[in-house]
């Protein structure tokens, strides 16, 4: 279902809602496109005219600093006009419905909505039912998906490891509440790594997590063996309700990544974290700032991935709208 709504009849991207249902070829195309955008970020004038005259609206129903600012930078580097709407403080508090607000924005000739929402499926709902002629990019919906974060992680892995073949990758921490983990697992499996593991206490793992195509570990000592890539997740304190953990100190002792635990993985293993980091909760400072950490590469790659996804979706959506207009004439 998601794959159909995301693609044009010729298989080009027109919305980017989820990694699931997208082929390895398309994910690779996103990575390749992003790779060529990295060079733009190294120029004197970090701007190309690809989306000149297009309007991108950042619709953040949930607070976010990094994701919103990298989406904004990405759109600006593509020369688009960017409107940032902090919805929690605007229209919806006056009683306007989501549909009404979006239709108003569409009437202002918006070409793309970047949507972050606490409800799973929000971006999909907008693409399907509210404003199907606006390209929708999912910037995180509930516990469901955060596909651009997953793709920037894939780009970081490919840059450091060359390819996905034979890699053993573990995602450590709060899998239960993590849309990032869900998107990463799908992307890693589609791109063909050898093994995806999840490492967490049982209280932070979904019951049926194996059906996503992962191996479940509850002990770091077992799960970290022979790893090429370690992805640490943030302990989402705001989502910790109902005594899922005894204490942060206890969590750090058992699941926090420090030098001693890192030594159990392969010597050339890379350490990733989607940010923001809770130092001393899920990761120690010497690991986060150490030679195996690629956390800041992830941030840089985030801009390139978002440029790639935005330009591809805009191109596909424009093609769709053009052919629809021609059919009407």
């Amino acid at each position, binding site marked *: 279902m998601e794959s159909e709504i995301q693609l044009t009849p010729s298989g*080009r991207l027109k919305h980017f809602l989820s990694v699931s249902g997208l082929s390895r070829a398309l994910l690779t*195309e996103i990575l390749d496109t992003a790779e*060529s955008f990295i060079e733009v970020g190294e*120029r*004197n004038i970090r*701007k190309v*005219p*690809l989306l000149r005259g297009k309007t991108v609206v950042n619709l953040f129903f949930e607070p976010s600093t990094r994701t919103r600012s990298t989406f904004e930078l990405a759109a600006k580097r593509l020369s688009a006009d960017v409107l940032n709407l902090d919805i929690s403080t605007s229209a919806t508090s006056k009683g306007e419905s989501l549909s009404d607000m979006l239709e108003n924005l569409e009437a202002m000739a918006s070409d793309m909505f970047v949507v972050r929402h606490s409800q799973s499926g929000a971006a999909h709902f907008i693409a399907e039912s509210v404003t199907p002629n606006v390209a929708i990019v999912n910037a995180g919906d509930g516990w469901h998906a955060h596909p651009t974060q997953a793709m920037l992680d894939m780009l970081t892995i490919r840059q450091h490891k060359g390819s996905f073949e034979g890699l053993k990758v573990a995602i450590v921490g709060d899998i239960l509440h993590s849309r990032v983990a869900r998107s990463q697992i799908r992307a890693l499996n589609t791109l063909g790594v050898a093994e995806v593991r999840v490492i967490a206490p049982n209280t932070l793992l979904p019951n049926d997590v194996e059906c996503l195509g992962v191996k479940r570990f509850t002990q770091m000592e077992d799960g970290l063996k022979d790893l090429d890539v370690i992805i640490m997740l943030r302990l989402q304190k705001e989502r910790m309700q109902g005594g899922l953990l005894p204490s942060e100190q206890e969590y750090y002792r058992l699941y926090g990544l420090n030098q001693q635990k890192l030594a159990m993985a392969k010597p050339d293993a890379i350490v990733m974290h989607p940010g923001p980091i809770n130092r001393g909760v899920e990761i120690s400072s010497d690991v986060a700032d150490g030679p195996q950490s690629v956390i800041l590469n992830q941030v840089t790659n985030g801009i390139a991935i978002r440029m790639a996804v935005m330009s591809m979706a805009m191109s596909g959506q424009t093609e769709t709208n053009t052919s629809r207009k021609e059919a009407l004439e």
Partner: protein
Amino acid sequence: MTEQIDVATLIAKMAQDIETQMQTRGISTYEIVGIHSGGVWIAQQLRQALKREQAVGEINISFYRDDFTRVGLHPQVSPSNLPFVIDNTHIVLVDDVLMSGRTVRAAMNELFDYGRPASIQFAVLIDINQRELPIAPSVVGTVMALATDERVKLIGPEDLHVNIQKIAIQDN
């Protein structure tokens, strides 16, 4: 069909023309930039013919095209690489085929995003006079006339040769 175009001879002639023009203009140092991908191949041949040590720059205009929403991006192509400063530098921009002029317009826009060149000369292997923009090359290998259903393509990067292909005309 393959028209008998001797690419090597044309490149030798272009190299000579570039040298003459630079002397006339009193320019002693300059850089060569090829437009991806055919232009880069020609630029590399020109570099050899001119016995230059400096590497040629490569420019990829994918992000500057005026028709990307129609034709999409071509992500596999390699990014631009200009291993020298553009500001106040004399540039010889090189492409394989000049037709509408849209490609070289995009390439010049891109160059200006790297800096303000002192001057830009434009050297092209084949000039097909179907300009849609007021653009004229400074150095030309050969001029060629094409029927409306014909397109010319440089095949490379080894053993450069020119192909003329019949295309299906699409209604626009």
